[in-house]
């Protein structure tokens, strides 16, 4: 498994890691910073992680995904620091023999990552900033 928290994501890393002669299908999800959110202009997002725990939780998700689906490999990469619109903030990639498993596992991994991995983002608008999800 490729599990990584990093300042700048290199989009070539996950596909290179996931490709192999046994694999027939790779699904890759890339989350990027949008320049607007809820009708407001976003200037940048700042990401903060509780790194040792986040890496552990990411690894647990990878292991669970490999138990649930017949996967060859899993890559989970998350960025930290300040990110501008257009920049990648998360990459999830999985490889499997057939495409069903790759789509399902990749979708499950990004959904679970958003629920359990201790990483926080603050959205900076033109006039204020908020920690996303903090309040009901």
């Amino acid at each position, binding site marked *: 498994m490729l599990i990584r928290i990093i300042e700048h994501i290199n989009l070539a890393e996950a596909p290179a890691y996931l490709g192999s002669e046994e694999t027939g299908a790779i699904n890759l999800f890339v989350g990027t910073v949008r320049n607007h959110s809820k009708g407001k202009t976003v200037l940048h997002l700042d990401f903060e992680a509780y790194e040792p*725990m*986040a890496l552990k939780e990411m690894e647990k998700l990878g292991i669970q995904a490999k138990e649930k689906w017949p996967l060859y490999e899993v890559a989970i990469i998350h960025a930290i620091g300040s990110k501008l619109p257009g920049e990648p903030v*998360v990459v999830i990639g999985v490889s499997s023999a057939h495409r069903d498993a790759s789509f399902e596992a990749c979708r499950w991994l990004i959904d679970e*990552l958003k629920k359990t*991995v*201790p990483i*926080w983002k603050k959205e900076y608008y033109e006039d204020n900033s908020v*920690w996303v999800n*903090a309040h009901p």
Partner: protein
Amino acid sequence: MEILLFGITRDITGQQKLTIPQENQPHTVGDLKAWLGQQFPAIKQLSSLAVAVDSEYAEDDLAINSNSEIALIPPVSGG
């Protein structure tokens, strides 16, 4: 006892890290949450608050002491 803080819990407490004096030390995760709610009412307004002990999510009845690495986990928003 030291408590690691992240995200909005740093803004709420105005600190990078909480230090709880010996005499106030909570014995369980549940005690810690109750103490936090008293000290920082804004914490009760969060969508959720979890506590991690030695970098694992912990249940309220888990016993804690100063040898553990304890962290507050406000609502996560990665991805």
